[in-house]
């Protein structure tokens, strides 16, 4: 069995209650931090651990905390990004509903480290039951003196607010999230200034993902160095992966970073292999926004090295032959999947979710979707394929927030690796539109 850090106690009945959580070692990290450590020492442990943000971009968490501005007399905020909007990603909500106190404890430790006296958990509005679970856990922690005024007699105060979002993907982007939290339309802000300087209510703010914050509990209990010894290279610790698609055992798994993709995909402990009688066609490794890779690049990198579940290995070769670990949304496609249809489907999502501030994203996402719709429905031209590549290129890197990139990458990578399938849709319009008909190009199947 692989080592578990976040889900170690997840199987214990009643772990969502304060008493059971406490009996199993809960809130010991908080006691340790608040009673024996300075905020700076907590930040230092985060730095030592090498933990990288689990929300998608993978930015080192300790370094991000180090950037937080500390002007006199201005409040600081910690905001937990529990919006979890990336299609294919469903790990945070599993963590929150299973062990809510782990996040609460992580929030208190992190807020203490950053000197925040009011912190927010921004949860996707549809997840009302998770919001209720969190609120109950907060009330319990408060009643026991672990939250609120003068926590454990230390003189440190923290108010923790759970804020339901309206359910827009763009509100997962950190600056749009802050706008939304301030009660405004969830439009991303121009950067700079970054939230570390001017964030929530123009005050210094750290935005972190649920999983990133929950990791702090183990890091404080065991030390940053112990955490850094797990994993591989600059991908330290464990990662929650939400696996879905054509595999035998979809679900949320905690893996040690550095596990091979082969083992994750095929061992019975994790995905259990591709579903009976089928074979792998393609993989989206880190949520719908990362580039899709064909079967031949899934287990091995272009250099012939084993592909590992780590930030570096998955992105090996850049976008030509690699992808990204992203938020850990592992979506597997077997040969029954139509790549064009899937690309259209992803594109439909980004078109729908673009906030509409920047012209390339507002207009380009809709354009790509409409062209893909035509291709998938047998009304495409050969020139459309190059058009899509060109439009994707004109969006990528030229927008305010990375949603533009997120919309461009799936389209550009699908055409890069599965161009013959797009061409087949143009040359066989009648077949392409038959239900269940998919292109079986030999080149893509392994």
């Amino acid at each position, binding site marked *: 069995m692989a080592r578990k850090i976040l889900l170690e106690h997840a199987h214990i009945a009643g772990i969502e209650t304060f008493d059971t959580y406490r009996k199993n070692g809960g809130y010991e990290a908080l006691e340790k931090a608040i009673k024996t450590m300075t905020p700076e020492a907590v930040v230092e442990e985060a730095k030592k651990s090498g933990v990288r943000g689990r929300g998608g971009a993978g930015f080192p968490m300790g370094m991000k905390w180090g950037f937080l501005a500390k002007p006199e007399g201005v409040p600081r905020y910690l905001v937990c990004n529990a919006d979890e909007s990336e299609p294919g990603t469903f790990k945070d909500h599993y963590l929150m509903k299973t062990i809510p106190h782990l996040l609460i404890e992580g929030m208190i430790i992190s807020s203490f480290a950053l000197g925040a006296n009011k912190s927010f958990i921004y949860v996707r509005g549809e997840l009302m039951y998770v919001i209720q679970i969190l609120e109950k856990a907060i009330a319990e922690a408060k009643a026991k003196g672990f939250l609120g005024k003068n926590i454990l007699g230390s003189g440190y105060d923290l108010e923790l607010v759970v804020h339901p979002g309206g359910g827009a993907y*763009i509100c997962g982007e950190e600056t749009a999230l802050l706008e939304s939290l301030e009660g405004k*339309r969830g439009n991303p802000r121009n950067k700079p200034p970054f939230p570390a300087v001017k964030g929530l209510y123009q005050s210094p703010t750290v935005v972190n993902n649920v999983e990133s914050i929950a990791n702090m509990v183990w890091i404080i209990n065991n030390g940053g160095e112990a955490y850094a010894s797990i994993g591989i290279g600059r991908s330290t610790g464990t990662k929650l992966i939400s696996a879905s698609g054509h595999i035998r055992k979809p679900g949320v798994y905690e893996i040690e970073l550095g596990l091979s993709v082969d083992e994750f995909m095929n061992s019975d402990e994790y995905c259990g292999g591709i579903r009976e009688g089928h074979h792998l066609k393609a993989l989206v490794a880190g949520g719908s926004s990362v580039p899709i890779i064909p079967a031949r690049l899934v287990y091995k990198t272009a250099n012939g090295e084993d592909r590992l579940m780590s930030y570096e290995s998955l992105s090996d070769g850049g976008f030509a032959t690699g992808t990204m670990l992203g938020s850990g949304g592992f979506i597997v496609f077997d040969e029954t999947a139509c790549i064009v249809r899937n690309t259209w489907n992803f594109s439909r999502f980004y078109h729908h979710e673009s*906030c*509409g*501030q920047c*012209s*390339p994203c507002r207009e380009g996402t809709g354009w790509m979707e409409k062209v893909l719709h035509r291709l998938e429905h047998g009304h495409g031209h050969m020139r459309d394929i190059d058009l899509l590549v060109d439009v994707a290129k*004109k969006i990528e890197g030229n927008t*305010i927030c990375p949603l533009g990139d997120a919309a461009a990458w799936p389209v550009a990578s699908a055409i890069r690796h599965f161009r013959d399938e797009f061409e087949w849709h143009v040359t066989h319009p009648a077949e392409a539109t038959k239900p269940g008909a998919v292109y079986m190009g030999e080149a893509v199947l392994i």
Partner: protein
Amino acid sequence: MEDIKPQLFKITFDGIEVEVEPGTTIMQAARRIAEADASQGHLVPPAMCYYKPLEGSGGKCRACLVRVAQGSAKDTRPMPKLVPSCITQVQDGMVVENVTNPAVLEERKAIVEFLLLNHPLDCPICDQAGECHLQDFAYEHGSSNQRYEEERRTFEKHDIGPYIQLHMTRCILCYRCVYTADQITEKRVHGVLGRGDAAEISTYIEKAIDNDFSGNVIDVCPVGALTDKTYRFKNRVWFSKPVDAHRDCDKCSGHVTLWYRGEEVIRVTARKNEWGEVQEFICNTCRFEKKKTSDWVIEGPTKVVRSSVVSANKYRADTVKKPDFALRLANSQYKPIDDSRPFITDDETIRQLSIENNKKANERSLAENSNN
């Protein structure tokens, strides 16, 4: 006393060196170059959403993207992506590439294409023709072919109050009108609804915009989406004559431009600077209700740029040179049309001919489609 000069930042913009105060944006530095030497006007990056008098504007439309080839003298690395020049502040030693970088021009062409996907190309009938920033932007940076073949979005026209008409079909979602309403009116009732390309400028349940400064949204709109109902389609801008004037007003400065057709004032707007931005916002009374010359103290003709369409027909005949070469070329290529067909006047023959012509046209387009 010691003369303390503020420290200036030296930047290189398209090979031209300028010194500007810290805090200046790349766009403002470019404007500084053009203000010093009008022949460099073409270097100034285009702005569709940026509007200096409006706080928070800029960064959205991406029309003004430039490449920073060197971040500063201290950090000589280039910036990894193109940056919006309207909101990016200069650093000492920064090197900026604008029209000298093909990638910048390529992306500008793309932005024109994106903006024109859902903006009708109906300049000949649009009220904004001749004053439209998008028209200028497309003329200067766009390409002549369009690759978009899908359906465009269209909307019904909205009357938002007695003075303003909104035609969302033409809106490019620059947010300028929203910032204007936010910043200079007391009660904002309009904003953006919806997301992405389904977003629209709208009022609170078709409410009228009826505060004293609402008319300014017409001036800031870079395209013909918000128009002045008292002036719409009364004239083309190049047939009217702008004159600076003022009056004593208890609500605003009263400094305006009057637009004359003959002896008649057909429109009143705020005065704009050379970048098309209003200098002072004006109130609705001055804009909509004072349309007699006797309401105003006339200062004199408004200065307009010679190349602007507003300047058309405004020069004395003897100061305008005829395009000699073009006339000679046209003369040498002139061929009289030989149409010796008989004139047809009876209804029945015309009807028959039109049916035949339609049939031929249909066949032609069917043949073209089957070739594709």
